[in-house]
């Protein structure tokens, strides 16, 4: 849990301020997104504890924390999803993430919903290095590959292959140019708190 949180904060500092020095990590700590990420990691840990009574106690504490974070930040990342290391939540309000599995280096902005849709058997599975831009919705049993950017306000209800951009409502797939693969432009991230 601690290593995961460290990775998260380090990646956030890298995205926001350029490098992951200690001062920058401390600057990224009090952000609402970071707090919500920590509570999510705590919830995962509470679910994984073997000793039953302790697990129950931790779960109650997690539920209270989760509720407070929901109220004050509007970020609801439920501990059901397995999220890899290096998750970054930028900004706050209107973030709902409920998926089966999410890979490493997941970036999420405000107004994003990852959720279920009526009549679908399972939730979304998302690969590594995925960025969900403000206001986009990923619904139903979709599978999103690695290195994908979902553009702002688009609606994804079909599968997205690796190394591509999903854009529009409903989304159409545009292959990503090889140069800008993986690398996220740092100027774009630098404007948020």
């Amino acid at each position: 849990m601690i290593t995961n949180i460290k990775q998260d904060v380090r990646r956030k500092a890298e995205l926001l301020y350029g490098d992951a020095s200690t001062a920058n990590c401390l600057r990224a700590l009090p952000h609402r997104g970071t707090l919500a990420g920590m509570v999510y990691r705590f919830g995962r840990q509470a679910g994984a504890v073997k000793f039953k009574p302790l697990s129950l106690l931790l779960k109650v504490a997690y539920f209270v924390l989760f509720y407070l974070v929901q109220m004050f930040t509007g970020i609801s990342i439920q501990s059901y999803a397995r999220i890899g290391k290096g998750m970054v939540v930028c900004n706050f309000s209107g973030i709902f993430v409920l998926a089966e599995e999410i890979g490493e280096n997941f970036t999420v902005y405000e107004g994003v919903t990852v959720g279920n849709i009526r009549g679908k058997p399972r939730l979304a599975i998302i690969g590594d290095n995925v960025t969900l831009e403000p206001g986009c919705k990923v619904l139903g049993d979709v599978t999103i590959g690695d290195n994908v950017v979902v553009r702002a306000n688009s609606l994804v209800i079909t599968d997205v292959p690796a190394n591509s951009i999903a854009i529009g409502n409903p989304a159409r797939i545009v292959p990503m140019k090889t140069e800008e693969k993986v690398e996220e432009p740092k100027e774009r991230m630098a404007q948020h708190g």
Partner: protein
Amino acid sequence: MGLFSLIKADVKFKQQWFLSQKSWFTRNVRVFLEPGTIAVIVYRYGSWARTIKPALLRIPLYIPYALGKVLVVLGFGIYVPSKAKIGPGFVIHNFSNIFISEGEIGSNCIVFQGVTTGHLREQPEPPKLGNNVFLGAGAKVLGSVKIGDNVVVGANSVVISDVPDNCTVMGNPARIISRETNWMAEKREGKKVVNY
């Protein structure tokens, strides 16, 4: 309908639809801790308090409403004015960025996060919604439009024109993609709907 029967209808609709886990804790405790349920209860209380006849009696009844509204607006980001006329079975699922206008809404309406219904410039009338309307996450219904019964508005779509009965609309601006949508009514009758 009285205050308690309305709240009962809302909570029952939510239990029936949205909580796939069938455990006792989820059905009877967690449903009341959901921000959406709290917002609906506060709204019902406010609209009930408006109908009390001697105006002097209303003032003490407004105090708990104001406190509840502060919690709902500042804490959860859900705004439902007490002037709105909403039928029984109103469900808010999730929270934040929800703004419901003062217009009429029929029975069994489902609202997700990020939904706005409101008036546009030069169209002062708020939108009117029929029965069994489903507004997906991030949907916007703007202007003095009329939405019929059994309508599904897809996620992130923007509705600025009238929608007839039994339709599924989607996209920005919204286009009709199906004219045979009746899963809300069917599911209320107990049929099992697998896909659309």
